[in-house]
């Protein structure tokens, strides 16, 4: 009891010091562990000034990064906006690493500090440590060291080959960053011994199942005739990771340039899960801080005044302007994610008849277990598709607008009614699907015989064509890396070529 009094005196003092932060981290960590059963990486909380926060922004939240003008541009842009008062800085910035590094702004009040510690050091941290996207695609243990390596490597290249040449390579890689991501694991190479084993087994199976009858079948039409050009088609399967393709197969690329491509590819891959889980990640962190703060209040660590300040910031975070407000700039991922998580909890505890019909699997289950399960096994599009409930759609009054190029008016596709729930949900899920905002472009062919020309194919989805100007500029970058002519075809559903870009 005495401890609680001591803590309360600390937490309700608007000025914080080192002891306050340590105590806050202890209490919040304990509640996170015991009450919300969170498994996290160890935390590294860093107190930074606004200038340092701007630096962190420019490096997209990595503690170190290789030198490039793009980061300088972002820095200048943010600094301009910040000094003009057009943009505020966030209270914290958290890095998916082990230990999990979070930057907290020095001018946060004590309440904000506690909120930030609960939000970032418990919420985001637990998300990084448990969500399958992060576990599969990033290695939190090594990212900080890898970036140090990347910086040193690129500095060395600058020294050896000149800053301009390095900058050209980096510019080209950055243009392709969205197309430098693996979305599926490639099968790992097997050793010669395993390959031998496999072949042996295969022959054994063939022998066991040998049947004279098979010989009489006509040859399959799918298989290319031996000796035809198709047989030597390269690559055998189209490759969507264009950076990877160039790194591995560019005919005349020096080794150091391949290594730089690899570095950019790794960075792109590292950020891939963050782009794919924005709603979930923020939603879960907000859900976490909301519960931890309320628990702290329940247990008497903080008083009413503290809670009022907390609720004010909390509702500020969750502010969702309506579609016709002048402040509207898209859906607030914090709000959407938080609402869905809160509704999962509600459905588990107090289901209505509607919920029984929509979410029979959730009804009556332990809410914490379900929230953990969701947090671990989904990403934004699947999360919305599975868990956006009619109630959330009603509460947020979501509706869809159909914008068809060929029509002069927008059509309201669905609203928050019985007929609309599923459509809205599907549509919103699509909106967070990567393929809706990043064009689907794959490396499909290389002319191995004459020109070494690289052929790319853009598959047009819902009639969305490429922006011609940027496409040409990007192709120039590919041309530079590949070293030989490049051609891009935009193909529609029927496989008919709609437009072609070529850089000789």
């Amino acid at each position, binding site marked *: 009891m005495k401890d609680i009094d001591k803590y309360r005196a600390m937490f309700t003092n608007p000025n914080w010091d080192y002891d306050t932060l340590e105590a806050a*981290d202890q209490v919040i960590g304990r509640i996170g562990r015991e009450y919300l059963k969170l498994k996290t990486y160890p935390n590294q909380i860093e*107190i930074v000034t606004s200038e340092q926060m701007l630096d962190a922004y420019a490096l997209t939240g990595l503690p170190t990064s290789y030198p490039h*003008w793009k980061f300088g541009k972002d820095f200048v*842009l943010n600094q301009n906006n910040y000094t003009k008062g057009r943009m505020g800085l966030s209270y914290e910035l958290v890095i998916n690493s082990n230990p999990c590094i979070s930057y907290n702004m020095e001018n946060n009040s004590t309440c904000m500090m506690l909120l930030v510690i609960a939000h970032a050091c418990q919420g985001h941290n637990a998300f990084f440590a448990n969500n399958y996207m992060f576990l599969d695609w990033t290695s939190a243990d090594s990212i900080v060291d890898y970036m140090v390596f990347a910086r040193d490597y690129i500095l060395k290249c600058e020294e050896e080959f000149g800053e301009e040449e390095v900058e050209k390579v980096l510019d080209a890689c950055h243009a392709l960053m969205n197309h430098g991501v693996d979305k599926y694991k490639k099968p790992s190479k097997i050793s010669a011994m395993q390959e031998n084993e496999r072949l042996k087994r295969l022959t054994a199976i063939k022998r066991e199942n040998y049947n004279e009858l098979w010989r009489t079948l006509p040859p399959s039409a799918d298989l290319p005739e031996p000796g035809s050009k198709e047989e030597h088609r390269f690559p055998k399967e189209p490759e969507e990771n264009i950076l990877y393709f160039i790194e591995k197969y560019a005919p005349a690329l020096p080794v150091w340039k391949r290594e730089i491509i690899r570095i950019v590819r790794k960075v792109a891959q590292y950020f891939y899960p963050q782009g794919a889980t924005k709603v979930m990640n923020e939603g879960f962190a907000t859900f976490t801080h909301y519960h931890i703060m309320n628990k702290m209040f329940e247990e008497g660590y903080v008083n009413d005044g503290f809670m009022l300040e907390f609720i004010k910031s909390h509702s500020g975070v969750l502010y969702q302007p309506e579609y016709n407000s002048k402040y509207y700039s898209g859906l607030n991922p914090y709000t959407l994610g938080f609402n869905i998580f809160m509704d999962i909890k509600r459905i588990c505890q107090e289901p209505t008849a509607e919920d029984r019909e929509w979410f029979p699997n959730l009804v009556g289950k332990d809410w914490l277990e379900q929230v953990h399960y969701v947090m671990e096994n989904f990403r934004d599009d699947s999360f919305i598709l599975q868990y956006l409930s009619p109630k959330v759609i009603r509460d947020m009054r*979501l509706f869809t607008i159909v914008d068809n190029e060929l029509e002069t008016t927008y059509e*309201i596709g669905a609203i928050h009614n019985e007929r609309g729930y599923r459509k809205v949900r599907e549509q919103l899920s699509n909106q967070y699907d990567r393929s809706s905002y990043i064009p689907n472009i794959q490396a499909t062919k290389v002319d191995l015989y004459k020109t070494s020309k690289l052929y790319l194919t853009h598959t047009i989805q819902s009639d969305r064509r490429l922006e011609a100007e940027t496409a040409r500029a990007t192709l120039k970058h590919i041309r530079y890396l590949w070293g030989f002519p490049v051609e891009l075809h935009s193909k529609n559903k029927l496989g008919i070529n709609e437009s072609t870009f070529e850089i000789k």
Partner: protein
Amino acid sequence: MSHIVDRRKNDKGKSTGNRQKFLKRVESQIKKAIPDILSQESIKDSKTGGSVKVPVRGLDEPAFRHDPKTGKKQIVKPGNDRYNEGDRVPKPKAGGGGGGRGKGSNSPETSEDEFTVVLSREEFLQYFFDDLALPKMVKKLMDSTETFEMKRAGYTRDSVPSRLNVKTSFQQSLGRRLALKGVFDKKLQLLEEQLALITDPEERVGLELEIEKVKRQANTIPFFEDIDLRYNNFERVPVPVTSAVMFCIMDVSASMGYHEKDIAKRFFTLLYIFLTRLYKNVELVFIRHHTEAKEVTEEEFFNSRESGGTVVAPSLKLMDKIMRERYDENWNIYCCQASDGDVWSKEDAKECKNLVLETILPAIQYMAYIEINNKNRESDLWQAYNRISNDEDFSIRHINEVYEIWPVFQGLFRKRNDSDSGR
């Protein structure tokens, strides 16, 4: 367990390198914008410190993107207050169809192509005067812009009494006295021991006399001797002159209108800023003239109007007088004269030419004469000056419009090749 680290004391310059890279990338644009800035008169802002804004564009980073105008898109928005399924809403007419508006923070359409780079005064001047140098700068610095300063450099045994360093001298004397006294003390001790052993009175008297003598000798050790004295040593160290004076001479006769004065003023300002970059301390002397020359304040120089004819020579004489009275060889002297070229008579022009050639040029670093009128007409003064201008320490140029100022200025101060400046 958690770590709490206070980073506030750490460097905040993490982005400095990247910012430099970025500036390098937009360098050509910044340079291109300089004449514009000049004609917008914001150069005065840069003089008073603070920052300069340079608009930059065309820095977009390309990537494959969907054309926002094409295709069939469905957008989910919150806060429906009036629509029902199947309603039709007219598309906004202009402004790109509004297709990308609803996509929120993921929207790639947010335009960041055009924004301003804020340069600090130093950075701005760096770009501003890049590739410019004062003609003959290096040579002048080596030859005559140097002066000497006395600097303390240890002690010496030989100097004038006024530089005596008492403390060090006393230390020397103390050591010497201790050393010498020690010799006598030892002798005395020896003699006294002998005295104690000897009983023969005669021998005792002899020894006592001896002791007396040694004691007396011991007392005669001088407190100071010449070899003790130490004097402060000074060395002459050459220091480059860090002050400069700039004479601005302007014709304010009736023929100089607002336009001409404005151009002159801008040119003077430019030169002034240029000099402040090279010298710590730059003084300005303003001389204006019509039929007679007068030294005035900056305010008067640019603002008051006079009328009457033009005689140029008195202003040069006045400058020479001020120069001799106030500015010795420790000053770097620059002169900039602006005029529309009108002179009273050919004699006046000739006198000016002689004055410049014989009395002014030998004493100063550089003189520039700008004539603000149409190039079609060669004035008497121009003709006179043209004969002696050499572009090394005396240059003459024509300016007629504001936009010409910068190219002319650049032309005057373009860096010569190395062989020239290295001499």
